């Protein structure tokens, strides 16, 4: 026995040591890549946002908050910021409201569940640029089927993507179409996680109407799902880029300029790296603020300990 004891002590020590070195060996590639490709560049971006650097310029100067000061007075940036926020404020509640409705409808019966789920989910996996092109055809002012349909009921044609009054409306509609399936699938997952016995209990407790059961069981138990969906959808909306790049390029007259597209134009068309970096920082701050609100403030109200 003494031999066994004497042996086991150092063995354990080497095992732990071996475990630690193996761990470092396993983490190293990912760790290096994480610094080189994500954390490092993100820090560089933050630094660049305080510089006046333009691509190709031999020198750069540190100009403090000048880029941000310029953003504050730049009407294009104001348009981009307000359009992005409008887009979030319209597309997020609309896709969540409609998505919850569709999910409840799909879940409330047994017929064609998988079919409808697939149909509503289709836009999520479709190449958005290509589908935007299809939308462009649908919404074409002269030959588009949408205007032709409207003409049949006597409504004058609308220049959906070409007029500054309608362009955000059109982009928001496409945005809802694009995000709806995502929301539906998340809500469906949330709904199936609600124990069936709770509905049975609600019915025996006297919750006669579907609305009573929704208020007593469905809505409170969907709380965590809803919060998650709100955050994710808001971030997806904040990132709106593809439809703008493919359909309007921010036009007409900056009426559909959004944050990421403006950042793209300033950085990669005009090569104003410093200015573009400042826009990216604003974008990042909004994203972080959203996540902070989710984790710090709201999380506690929807999780029942």
């Amino acid at each position: 026995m003494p031999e066994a004891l004497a042996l086991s002590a150092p063995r354990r020590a080497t095992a732990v040591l071996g475990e630690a070195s193996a761990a470092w060996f396993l983490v190293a590639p990912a760790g290096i890549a994480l610094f080189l490709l994500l954390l490092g560049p993100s820090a560089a971006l933050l630094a660049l946002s305080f510089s006046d650097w333009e691509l190709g310029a031999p020198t750069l100067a540190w100009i403090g908050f000048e880029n941000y000061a310029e953003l504050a007075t730049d009407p294009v940036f104001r348009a981009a910021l307000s359009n992005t926020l409008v887009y979030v404020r319209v597309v997020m509640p609309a896709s969540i409201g409609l998505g919850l409705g569709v999910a409840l409808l799909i879940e409330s019966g047994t017929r064609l569940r998988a079919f409808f789920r697939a149909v509503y989910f289709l836009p999520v996996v479709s190449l958005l640029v290509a589908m935007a092109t299809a939308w462009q055809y649908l919404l074409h002012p002269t030959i588009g089927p949408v205007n032709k349909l409207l003409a049949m009921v006597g409504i004058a044609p609308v220049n959906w993507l070409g007029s500054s009054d309608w362009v955000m409306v059109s982009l928001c509609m496409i945005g809802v179409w694009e995000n709806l399936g995502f929301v539906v699938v998340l809500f469906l997952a949330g709904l199936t996680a609600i124990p069936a016995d709770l509905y049975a209990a609600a019915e025996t407790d006297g919750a006669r109407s579907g609305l009573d059961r929704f208020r007593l069981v469905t809505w409170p138990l969907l709380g965590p799902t809803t919060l998650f969906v709100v955050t994710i959808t808001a971030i997806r909306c904040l990132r709106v880029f593809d439809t703008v790049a493919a359909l309007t390029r921010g036009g007409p007259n900056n009426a559909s300029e959004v944050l990421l597209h403006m950042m793209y134009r300033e950085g990669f068309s005009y090569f104003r790296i410093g200015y573009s970096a400042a826009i990216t920082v604003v974008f990042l701050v909004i994203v972080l603020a959203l996540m902070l609100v989710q984790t710090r403030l709201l999380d506690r109200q929807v999780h029942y300990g």
Partner: protein
Amino acid sequence: MRTARTLVEDTPRLALLSLGACIMLAPYVWMFFASLKPGSEVFRDSLTLWPETFYAVENYTKALTAVPLARFLLNGVLVCSLILVFQIAFAVPAAYALAKLRWRGREWAFGLVMLGLLIPYHVPALPLYVGAARLGLLDSFTALVVPFSISVFGIFLFRQAFRALPDELMQAARIDGMGEFSIVWRVVMPNAWPAATAFATFSIVAHWNDLFWPLIIVQSPQMATPALGVLFFRAEEAGNDVGALMAAAVLVTAPMIALFLLAQRHFIRGIATAGLKG
């Protein structure tokens, strides 16, 4: 009462869902039928779906020849698979070390992963572009693939999956004489298959459909991915030919939709669990 409803009782539900489904499918339907018609017919009457003159061969030929569309698709497949391979190769060992090994610095490292989760991939784009330009890598596969080779979301997802595995599994493998590296690939990974398929579908969809990065990094049509290819096609003269444009749109959309219809369950679960970060 939780009982099967009769078809009549189910009608309002089916009617509402069908109405919504029609709107969801409208762009696909018109896209597809326009790709079968000659341009003149599209201009004359876009409400009628069925073509008077069947023009599919001409449209699809033009779509495939005006720009190297087949090349775009091939690029897409190549880029997506390379990205996925790299992401898994980097993320899985790290996730295992974070989930199952005890080492000093583990909490700290996981903190960095969580920090990475908060940063959208648009943020490092600008410095990465500058770096690629300095290295002369613009317009190359390297520039298309490398920035995405590390997926913090992948690390996070795999870590959660690995944590659910019993410790005894690894202990048994160690007693059988396996090293940590073989444990990762021969014991842990085969037991985390659902997480792997979920991650794979998420990654493929995200990068097949990505426009932002290719738009920044790619200049020549030879390097374009499908998403960018659509824009190239529109920029060509062919862009005014609605029929051919829709044919091109059908061709680039079809592979992912086909894959989705084949593996619906995996796709939906993958994207639902992966909603965390895009």
